[in-house]
């Protein structure tokens, strides 16, 4: 699954640590999601979408679609 988390984070001038705090996860998890090494759960994806005021599809894209 591809995602635009790193781009969105940069657009909002957020560090990984700050984004992690806002999403209530560890910085390592934000890092792993950005690098595409870990796919977040639906609740976490919704949390990220709410935070950036976007839909889940705007942030996460299925590579096979």
């Amino acid at each position, binding site marked *: 699954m591809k995602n635009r988390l790193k781009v969105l984070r940069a657009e909002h001038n957020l560090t990984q640590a700050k984004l992690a705090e806002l999403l209530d996860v*560890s910085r*390592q*998890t934000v890092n792993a999601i950005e690098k595409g090494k870990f796919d977040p759960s639906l609740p976490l994806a919704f949390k990220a979408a709410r935070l950036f005021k976007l839909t889940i599809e705007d942030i996460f894209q299925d590579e096979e679609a």
Partner: protein
Amino acid sequence: MKQQTGLTFKQRNKLNTIYLAKWTLGWVLTLALASIGPGSLWAETNTLFSIVAVIINICAGIMMIMANKRHLSGLDELQQRLHLNAMAITLGGSLVFGLAYSVLQTSGVISLRQGISHLVMFMGITYFVCVVLMTKQLGTEEEE
């Protein structure tokens, strides 16, 4: 964005880790008391003291298990997955290698007798190595 408790993820995680460390220390100390006590602190014939020491140790152990459960529940989804994988490998490894060793010992191939402490050491080292390797594999230690 904070949880209902008013603590951030980091703060909550730190508190849970301290809580777990305290109960682990408590369990280790009460285990030492139950092991060393008979003969050192009270007479070996005094079974009542020995039973009480073991009961205290079991109670501390239950609290340690609860603290560990709380610690794991407080981790985020990536960390939980990592620990779940580490636990699966540790449990499987202990079962497979423990029984294989037992079979080799029974059949006389290996004469060296191993105790429960060796199994505990094996489990601890396996768990630790798994967590370290999987953390590295995910590249979660890299800086942003």
